[in-house]
């Protein structure tokens, strides 16, 4: 199935600096599996949002989901 992915800030390198892009994934795929496949260290992940809702890595992805990976951020 097809999903849309967006990495923010320094995490963009894990998405080959493509900005917003589409990717084919297997059905019955969790966010944890996606994170592992993309090679993103958990220590670098701040916030994961799917279709504008904050999700934990146990979330099961669905067709056409829009997944955003934000970095950890300090200050404000």
């Amino acid at each position: 199935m097809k999903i849309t992915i967006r990495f923010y800030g320094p995490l963009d390198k894990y998405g080959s600096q493509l900005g917003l892009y589409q990717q084919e994934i297997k059905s019955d795929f969790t966010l944890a599996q996606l994170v592992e496949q993309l090679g993103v260290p958990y220590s670098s992940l701040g916030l994961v949002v799917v279709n504008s809702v904050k999700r934990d890595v146990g979330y099961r992805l669905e067709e056409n989901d829009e997944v955003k990976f934000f970095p950890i951020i300090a200050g404000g």
Partner: protein
Amino acid sequence: MSYTGKLLRVNLTTGHSQVEELNKQWAVDYIGGKGLGLKYLYEELAPGVAPLSPDNKLILMTGLFTGTIIPLSGKLAIITKSPATGTILDCSIGGHFAAELKYAGYDAVILEGKASKPSYLYIEDKIVEIRDASELWGQGAQETELILREKINQEVKALAIGPAGENLVTMSCITSEFYRQAGRGGVGAVMGSKNLKAIAVRGSGSISVPNIKQFASSMKEFMQTDILTDTNLWANTDGTALLVDFNQDTGILPTKNFQQGTFDDYQAINSDALKAVRSGKKGCFSCALGCGNYSRTGRSTVEGPEYETLALGGSNCGISDLEAIIEFNDLCDNLGMDTISVGNVIAFAMELTEKGIKDFGLRFGDVEAYLKIPGLIAAQVGIGVDLGLGVKKLSEKYGGSDFAMHVKGLEFPGYEPRGSWGMGLAYATSDRGACHMRAWPVAQEAYGDLDAFTVEGKAQLVIELQHYNAVKFSLILCDFWALSLETMGTIVSNLLERTVTEQELSQVGERVVNLARQFNVREGFTKDNDTLPGRIFKETLKTGATKGQLLPLEEYEKMLAEYYSLRGWDRDGRPTDAKLQELGVN
């Protein structure tokens, strides 16, 4: 040792200046920056002093790290009593002024009294002169720096105020290097009240550190392992503008005077939009991150806009025209005003107008009217006289207190507390009014794993974050290095050549927080001031991830009571004698 051990005291009334020994015990107890500046002010300022009277003092305080190659250590703390809130006030400002002051031979400058005419202070090593500033008076903050560079030296480092500070506007800031600000609480008005237009410094000395080879090598290692990493590099790739997307997706982006937590046009004002007009980058002294992003449009060039300006001067005013926000930023910078407070007061006036309470001729999204306001406030003409009062006093004059978004007279920063309940407690208990730099639980609640919509565990979280930030701003380090207390302890230990543990540093943080609280208690602040506007307790948000949320008053009160109890304060929020004794706060 990386202290100079010297403090410069300048009396602007008499023109007399003298060099004093830095109080060594206080430097042990409070380190420097925020903590040490606060200690000096607490000891020297009589209770009840009017913030804009000659009796108030303005303290410039460097820190243990200032002037060294420790990364992100370029900030200066400015401490005074706030004319906006009547509380203690400390701001930090980036650039190169702090290091230059230390190279001139001083850890701190204490400014007292009031000059008889517009003046600026010039410091060059042992030379200390109060000079005539009649040709600078009336100039913008940025023009003032340009003139000083022309007159003195292109390398001179300066702090300056704009017309807003001269006109004693209580949302005026102090500027350095054109685009860096000590923004909040009216520090610019305190300078203006002293007839002090600018402070310019040149230093030819140096700072020594022990075991220089080992020190340099460990800094290089920190750079690779703790700074140029995924955890900090957002500051370089995007800067704070990245927070627009974070906050839109978590429903905490202030919109139309905090009536909503999402903004339909957020993509017009986010980091992606800004990158299209980015024209350069800049870093402060000793900083490899370089969070400063220059933006250039047809009309203006600014360093920024930072997230707070995009939120408070953008979505919160219903403004989605990025060029207009950049112009607003440019106007505020040169006039010398805090974009957070100016954005807030415009949004409040827009809501007062739209609700028919008081017609200021301002409506959400009206770019033309919005861009006129900074000039009117700074010059104190027309509706600028009213708007310059700030949100609190404006609500006292015309009504609307439930949606006057401030704490103790300081306007809200760009994080909606109904989507981060701990942030509500952090605003309410911050020493200078609504502030995101005393504790920022948003990272754990809105972005992290903690439930944002519960008070469970939040009092303890806010306390720990307040201690952490009090240490960081006393060392003094930039907010954007996400280093641990343990790492801070390692660096401090190397500099002082004695072991300073994480626990000891945390206790310094607690001491600073308690001394700030004592200052405010002495000024008459009580539990009643540790609260939030009615909107937060009564109105639910209508959109996004925070739809249907408010912060129930009874839950807030439970969280506040727990906070006082965990702090060892009494039920009215006063530090107990036992707690003060434990911390050595007299």
